[in-house]
């Protein structure tokens, strides 16, 4: 009989177990700030971002399933290592054990984890809640733009005093 936790929901590209593993990793990459101002990466929709990126790749002609398949495979591999090394699912391990496993993978075969980190911070640092917590407005630069100080031109006085500095011909 199929384990309900292994069933992939019709609107999720990963199973419940894979989702729990992913969330645990995301929380390692970018945890919530201690003061609660900044959220964990779990809360900014990284999986949706990956799914959208995969769909974009499909539009561009590259197979979409590669990105999602890789994600599933790597999450399963991480979970298998957790069960082998620590006797339990990755998502249920103590934080220290989770970090130990992730650090080992980063050291020995960093490709997936590095890629996941880049996707995570890309998603994280364009999220409204994060930008607002950083004191920025969550909007496109155009049309309002930004105010920038013109600058104190009296700082040029020493340059002017030193005089001409190009060669005549």
């Amino acid at each position: 009989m199929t384990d309900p936790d292994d069933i992939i929901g019709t609107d999720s590209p990963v199973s419940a177990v894979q989702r729990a593993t992913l969330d645990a990793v995301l929380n390692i990459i970018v945890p919530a700030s201690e003061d609660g101002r900044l959220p964990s990466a779990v809360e900014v929709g990284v999986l949706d971002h990956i799914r959208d990126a995969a769909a974009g790749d499909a539009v561009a002609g590259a197979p979409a399933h590669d990105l999602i398949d890789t994600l599933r495979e790597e999450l399963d591999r991480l979970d298998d290592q957790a069960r082998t090394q620590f006797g339990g699912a990755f998502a249920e391990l103590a934080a220290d054990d989770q970090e130990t496993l992730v650090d080992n993978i980063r050291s020995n075969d960093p490709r997936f984890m590095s890629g996941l980190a880049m996707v995570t911070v890309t998603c994280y640092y364009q999220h409204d809640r994060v930008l607002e917590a950083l004191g920025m407005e969550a909007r496109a630069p155009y049309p309002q733009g930004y105010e920038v100080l013109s600058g104190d031109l009296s700082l040029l006085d020493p340059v002017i005093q030193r005089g001409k500095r190009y060669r005549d011909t």
Partner: protein
Amino acid sequence: MAEDIVDVLIIGAGASGAAVAWSLAETRMRIVCLEQGDWMNPADYPSTKRNWETARAGEYSISPNVRRRPADYPINEDDSPISVANFNAVGGSTILYAAHFPRFHPSDFRVRSLDGVADDWPIDYASLDPFYAQNDRNIGVAGLAGDPAYPPHEPPLPHVPLGLMGETMARGFNALGWHWWPSDSAIVTRPYEGREQCANLGPCGSGCATGAKSSADITYWPMAQRMGVELKTHCRVREITVDERGMATGVIYYDENDVECRQRAEVVIVACNGVGTPRLLLNSTSSGFPDGLANRSGLVGKNLMFHPWGHVQGVFDEPLESHYGPGGCCMLSQEFYETDPNRDFLRGYNMQITRGGGPIGTAMAGITSGDIPWGAGHHEAFAKFFDRTVNMGLCCEDLPEEHNTVTLDPSLTDSNGIPAPKITYRVSENSRRMLQHGLERGTEVMKAAGAWQVRTVPLVRMAGWHLLGTARMGFDPERSVVNEWGRSHDVRNLFIVDGSIFVTSGGVNPTTTIQALALYIADSMKQRLANLFD
């Protein structure tokens, strides 16, 4: 049906093609420009999007090999440590340029006489001065008069804002007693000629949605078209044709449906940049020009010059709002621009201060470098870098060397089967010493300004924006491709007006000089219309 023969055919609608089209339009000659790209829609530029940082990748990459838009052609760069940056559209590479707009120095035109290397130009700064000024007024250039590093000139618009970042760097330069000045920038800082002023969006290098950056599509082209110049897009020129007299007769091109077409012309003007122009000429062979059109000197495609580009980044304790403002334009230092015989290299470089990265760029760079960790400490580390970084580009003069070339690749082609260009280039020992000097001085001024961390990149690969020297000017037909007013020595109705005609590269961004030269050549043509082919 009578054959359609235009008076002037311009190939390429970028910085120089646009300038020459505008200038010649007053003659009321029938002028047609063929451009392989299309008009850009500013509403599509990344700065209009929430995900502007990531939207800059892909189709707005500076590299055609990454971008792969329909108008792009591939470039073989396997034998070059510097990658070509360009953009194929109406406006050309000005669509993506940073608009940093410093002029050449007078000494840049006299490198052989002053420093004993390279060659002298057949023209001088004084000859170009009025055309620099005309271009500044035509397109809208911001700056500050009084720079002691230049002969007097007066940009028409106020300088771009320095910001807290600029003031901080200014104090660093002042502490060392070094030159600095607000950069001349092709950006309108006040409403100008119906265009809105700069709103400091930031990502100028992926197109200006405001229309404040003075790209050729929104400056020269509307004026030229109103004066009757006909601009045809999606027209990729394959070769220039000649007759038995050795005169250019027109071009063969592919239209938007990839149908092969011919356009006859009395005069042909090439404006395809320092890679596109030699590619076109080398592909235009005939019995009279077996080695490529206008190439009896053998110099077409040779003497390729980039500006070898170093990078210095400083990180400061205080927030500098450094990611706000025109990305590539703030201030520059020419302290080490002119040759100093006490140094171990000839010629010099400019230090171009540019803005800091956005939040995504800061995080990605920090994680890659290890400065911003995963997990505990991530937020604290991010806060130390974001909004607190200042970047500096080292734009080094590149001496002309014949072994640095643009040739036709033997197997790689574009979508129309036209041979792609192949770049063969190596950084000279003079450039390496210059870069090293720049990295050390850049580090020195960052620390003088208060940076607690300074990182350097000795040679940036994705920095081949400036494509120069591959169809050089000169008096001697055996040592140059075009004469002192841009006409081919070999083909008397063929002109070249882009950066390929540069004799030396200078140590500054070239576009203002490219456009001034184009205007100068157009003016020279207008003065000689009665005997243009003599």
